[in-house]
C-alpha cells in the first residue's frame, strides 16, 4: 500500500475495485464502513454483488476482466471534463501525451458496452473520485489475477497520477494483500528475479553485494515463478520441488496439471498438516505454526510486526527457519543462527528498507518500511511530494478480452474468490468446527435466470466443465452474479482450480488469469 490502513477510516472517497474487502480483509472492510458512516462516498467495481454493495454510492457490476476499459473510461471523463490535476501532471509525471491519445478511444459509452454498466455511472464515478484530495484506491486480486493484471494495476496508477491523488493522507493506490506475510515474502526476495528489498538478481552491482554478504558466487539468471516451475516439473526439467507453507494442489490453476507435475518431481513439503499437496510428496517435514515461534510478519501497509512464541510446537515439529538452516548446514554452507532475531539482523544488513528496524524497536509497535536508519520513524505514506522514481510513469494500456472467452463450447465466465470464513486452501480453517458449521461445503453461484434456463434449483448438484476438466458441485442460485457469470470460492480442493487455466500467464508478472475462465454448466441427471 502507498498509504496506511488507519487512513482509510478518514478517506472521503474510496474506490474499491476487485476487492471483496469485508470478506477478504474484514477489518479493513470495517474501516471502509467506518469511513462511509462518517460521510465518505464509496465506489465499488466488482463482478459480484459483494457485501460492500450496500454501502456504495456508485456500484459498477462489471463483466469479469474488464477493469482496464472501466478505468480508462473514468480517466477519459476526467480529461474530457478538465478534472485532472494539470500541475501535478506537468511537474511529476512523464508519458502523458502519448497516453491521452489512447484514452480518447475509451469513451464512457464504449467502456459501458465492454463492462456491461451504465455510462452515466462511469461518469459519476470519475467525478466522485476527483471531488476530494482524500480519495483512495483499494484493490485486490479482482484486479491482478488476470492475463492483463499488471496492465490493470498500471491503469489504476494512471488514474491516481492524472489526479495527483498520491503522496497525501488518505489517498494513494492500495493493494490489499491476501495472506498474512505475502508482503514480507516479497520483501525478503522469495521471488525469482529479486533479492531482498526488490534488488534485481541480474544487476551486477547487486550480485556483487550479495556475493560479498553471502560469501559465494551467485547465479544471475532470473529463476522460475511458481506456474513456470510447475510446468517445468511436468516436463521433467525441474527434478526437485521444495514446497513450504503452500498448497498448490488447491491454490494453483489447473489441478490436473499440478498433480502430474507433483507426481513426476521429487517433492519435499514442509507444513502444519498433511495437505492435498503433502499427500503427493516424497518427504513431509512437520513445521511449527505462527503461535509456536518468534519472528516477524510484514502486513499489507508495509508494517513489520512481531510474532511471538506462545506455545510449544507439537511432537517433533520445528520452526521452518530451523529446518532450512539445518539443510543449509548439511549441504556444507554454514548457517549459524540461534534465533529468528539473528536472521533478522542479517536481513537488515542487505535490505536498505529494513536497515533501521530492530526487534527492540518492534517491541512496542510495528514499523513501516522504508526505514533506513535506527532513528528513522518509518514511512507512513509513499511518494510524498513527488513519486519515488522522480517522475510518475503514465503508460497507456489497452483492454483486451481474455482468450478464455468467446467460445460457444464454454460460454459462461467462471470467476473465483474468497469467502469470509475460510482462509486460502483451508489448511487451518477446515480444522475449526464453528467454521465448518458456517461454511461446510463448496458451491457455485448461479444467476436465477441461468438456473431456470438449465432447470437448476438451489441445492442441486451441477457439472461444470472447462477446457481443463470438470467438477460436480452444489448450486447456489443467487442474483449476486450476472446471468453469464458463475462464481466458485477457490478454498476447496478439486474445485474451482480444476477448471482454471495454468497455461496462459500475464506477460509481465506471470500471474495466471484465475478470475476469468470459460466454462459450461449442466444439471446433473
Amino acid at each position: 500500500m502507498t498509504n496506511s490502513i488507519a487512513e482509510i477510516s478518514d478517506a472521503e472517497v474510496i474506490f474499491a475495485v476487485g476487492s471483496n474487502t469485508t470478506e477478504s480483509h474484514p477489518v479493513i472492510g470495517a474501516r471502509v464502513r467506518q469511513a462511509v458512516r462518517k460521510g465518505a462516498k464509496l465506489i465499488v467495481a466488482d463482478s459480484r454483488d459483494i457485501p460492500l454493495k450496500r454501502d456504495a454510492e456508485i456500484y459498477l457490476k462489471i463483466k469479469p476482466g474488464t477493469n482496464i476499459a472501466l478505468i480508462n473510461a473514468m480517466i477519459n471523463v476526467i480529461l474530457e471534463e478538465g478534472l485532472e490535476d494539470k500541475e501535478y501532471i506537468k511537474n511529476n509525471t512523464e508519458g502523458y501525451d502519448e497516453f491521452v491519445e489512447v484514452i480518447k478511444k475509451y469513451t464512457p459509452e464504449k467502456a459501458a458496452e465492454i463492462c456491461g454498466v451504465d455510462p452515466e455511472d462511469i461518469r459519476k464515478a470519475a467525478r466522485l473520485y476527483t471531488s476530494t484530495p482524500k480519495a483512495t484506491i483499494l484493490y485486490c486480486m479482482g484486479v491482478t489475477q488476470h492475463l492483463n493484471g499488471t496492465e490493470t494495476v498500471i491503469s489504476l496508477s494512471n488514474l491516481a497520477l492524472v489526479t495527483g491523488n498520491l503522496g497525501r493522507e488518505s489517498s494513494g493506490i492500495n493493494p490489499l494483500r491476501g495472506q498474512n506475510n505475502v508482503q514480507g515474502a516479497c520483501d525478503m526476495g522469495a521471488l525469482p528475479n529479486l533479492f531482498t528489498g526488490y534488488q534485481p538478481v541480474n544487476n551486477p552491482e547487486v550480485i556483487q553485494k550479495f556475493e560479498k554478504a553471502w560469501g559465494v558466487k551467485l547465479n544471475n539468471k532470473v529463476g522460475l515463478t511458481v506456474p513456470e516451475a510447475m510446468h517445468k516439473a511436468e516436463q521433467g526439467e525441474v527434478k526437485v520441488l521444495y514446497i513450504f507453507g503452500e498448497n498448490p494442489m488447491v491454490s494453483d490453476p489447473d489441478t490436473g496439471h499440478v498433480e502430474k507435475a507433483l507426481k513426476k518431481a521429487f517433492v519435499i513439503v514442509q507444513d502444519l498438516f498433511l495437505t492435498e499437496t503433502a499427500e503427493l510428496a516424497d518427504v513431509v517435514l512437520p513445521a511449527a505454526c505462527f503461535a509456536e515461534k518468534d519472528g516477524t510478519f510484514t502486513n499489507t501497509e508495509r508494517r513489520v510486526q512481531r510474532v511471538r512464541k506462545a506455545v510449544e510446537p507439537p511432537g517433533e515439529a520445528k520452526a521452518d527457519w530451523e529446518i532450512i538452516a539445518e539443510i543449509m548446514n548439511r549441504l556444507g554452507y554454514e548457517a549459524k543462527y540461534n534465533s529468528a532475531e539473528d536472521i533478522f539482523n542479517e536481513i537488515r544488513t542487505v535490505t536498505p528498507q529494513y536497515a533501521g528496524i530492530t526487534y527492540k524497536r518492534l517491541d512496542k509497535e510495528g514499523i513501516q518500511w522504508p526505514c533506513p536508519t535506527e532513528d528513522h520513524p518509518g514511512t507512513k505514506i509513499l511518494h510524498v511530494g513527488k513519486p519515488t522514481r522522480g517522475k510518475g510513469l503514465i503508460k497507456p494500456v489497452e483492454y483486451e478480452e481474455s482468450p478464455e472467452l468467446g467460445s460457444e463450447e464454454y460460454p459462461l465466465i467462471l470467476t473465483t474468490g474468497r469467502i469470509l470464513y475460510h482462509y486460502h486452501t483451508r489448511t487451518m480453517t477446515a480444522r475449526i468446527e464453528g467454521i465448518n458449521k458456517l461454511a461446510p461445503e463448496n458451491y457455485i453461484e448461479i444467476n436465477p435466470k441461468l438456473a431456470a434456463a438449465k432447470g437448476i434449483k438451489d441445492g442441486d448438484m451441477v457439472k461444470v466443465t472447462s477446457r481443463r476438466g470438470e467438477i460436480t458441485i452444489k448450486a447456489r442460485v443467487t442474483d449476486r452474479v450476472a446471468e453469464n457469470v458463475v462464481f466458485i470460492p477457490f478454498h476447496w480442493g478439486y474445485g474451482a482450480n480444476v477448471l482454471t487455466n495454468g497455461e496462459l500467464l500475464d506477460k509481465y508478472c506471470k500471474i495466471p488469469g484465475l478470475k476469468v475462465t470459460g466454462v459450461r454448466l449442466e444439471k446433473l441427471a
Partner: protein
Amino acid sequence: MINLKIDGRDVCVPEGTTILEAAETAGINIPTLTYDPRLGPCGDWDVCVVEVEGRLDFPKASSTVVEEGMVVRTETPAVVNVRKAILGRILANHPLDCLTCPKSGACKLQELCFKYDVKEATGVKTREERPIDDTNPFYYSDPNKCISCGKCVEVCAKLQCAKVLSFVEKGPHKYVSPPFGTAIAQSECVSCGNCVSVCPVGALMPKSKEVFRYWETEPVRTTCSYCGVGCQMDVLVKDNKIVDVRPADGPANGGLLCVKGKFAYGFVNHPDRLKKPLVRKNGKLEEVTWEEAFDVVVSKLKETKEQYGPDSIAAFSSARALNEENYLMAKLMRAVIGTNNIDHCARL
C-alpha cells in the same frame, strides 16, 4: 490549553478534553465499567463519577469536558459512596454466580465490586429471566448477565458497522439481541466477535472448548496469521494451549478482529498436526526420524544438483511463514543450491 487540578495535581490538556482523558494523562485512573476511547462517553449509569469543586452533582468524568481552573477529586468518600450505590443497583439485576461464571477474573463488574467492597444488591430484581442465545457456533449471549451498557451494540454499529445487535425493550429494561429479538444465527452476524471482546461482564462469551480461569492464562502479544491486515492480538495461554484470543489496539486493527482472528485458533492444537517427519517408502508416507528425513532431503538435493545442475531444483517459499524464514529459503536456494528458482504464492 486548559489548566486544572486533579487530585491535587496540576494538569494541562487541550481544550475539549474530558476529565477522564485528562486524568489519564496525569496517570490517574478513574474507574469505569465500560469506557472505550473508540466509542466516546460511558453510559449514564457508569461509575466514572467525580467531584468538581463548586458543583453539587457528581459529573461523569467520561462526558464532562475540562474547564480552566477546574478542581477535580476522583476518589473522595462521597464519590466512593455514589459508585457503591451504582454498583449495588446493577447487582440487583445481575446474578451473583462468580464461583462458576467463566468471566470471573476478567469481569469489570466483579473487579469494581471487589474494589469498593460491594457484596449485595440494592433493591429488588426487576429484569425477567430470558433464555440464552447459543445459536452462533463461536459465542453465546446470556441476557441474564447483561448490564445493558450497550457497548456491544455500539461496537457492532460504529466500528464493525454491521448493526446486527440492537437494544430490544421489554418493560422497563433493555435487552441486547438482533432486531425484533431474532436469534443470532438468523441475523446478519458475521461472527467477528468484537461484541464479545468488549463485553465488560459475562453476557457475551466465547464458546470455549477449554475449562480455564482468566487468572490462569498468560497473554502473548502477537500478529494474526490470517490475512494481510496484520491485526495485533493477545493469545491467552494456559498449559501450553491457546484458550482465548483478545484483540489488541494495533495500528491496523484498532482493537478489532474478524471471525478467523478471534475464533479460528483451534488449528494450532489440532490432533491432525504433523508431529514427525514422513518419507515415502514403497509408495506410502511413513514416519521417520529427523536424521533420516534430513539425509533423504540433503542427498536428493546434492545428487540432483550434481547430475542436472542447480536450475533443476525449485522452491516455493511461503506467504504464511516469517520474514526470517522466507529470507532463509531464498538464501538456501541462491547461495547454497545456486539457482534463482524461488517464488511463493503471491500470485495465487
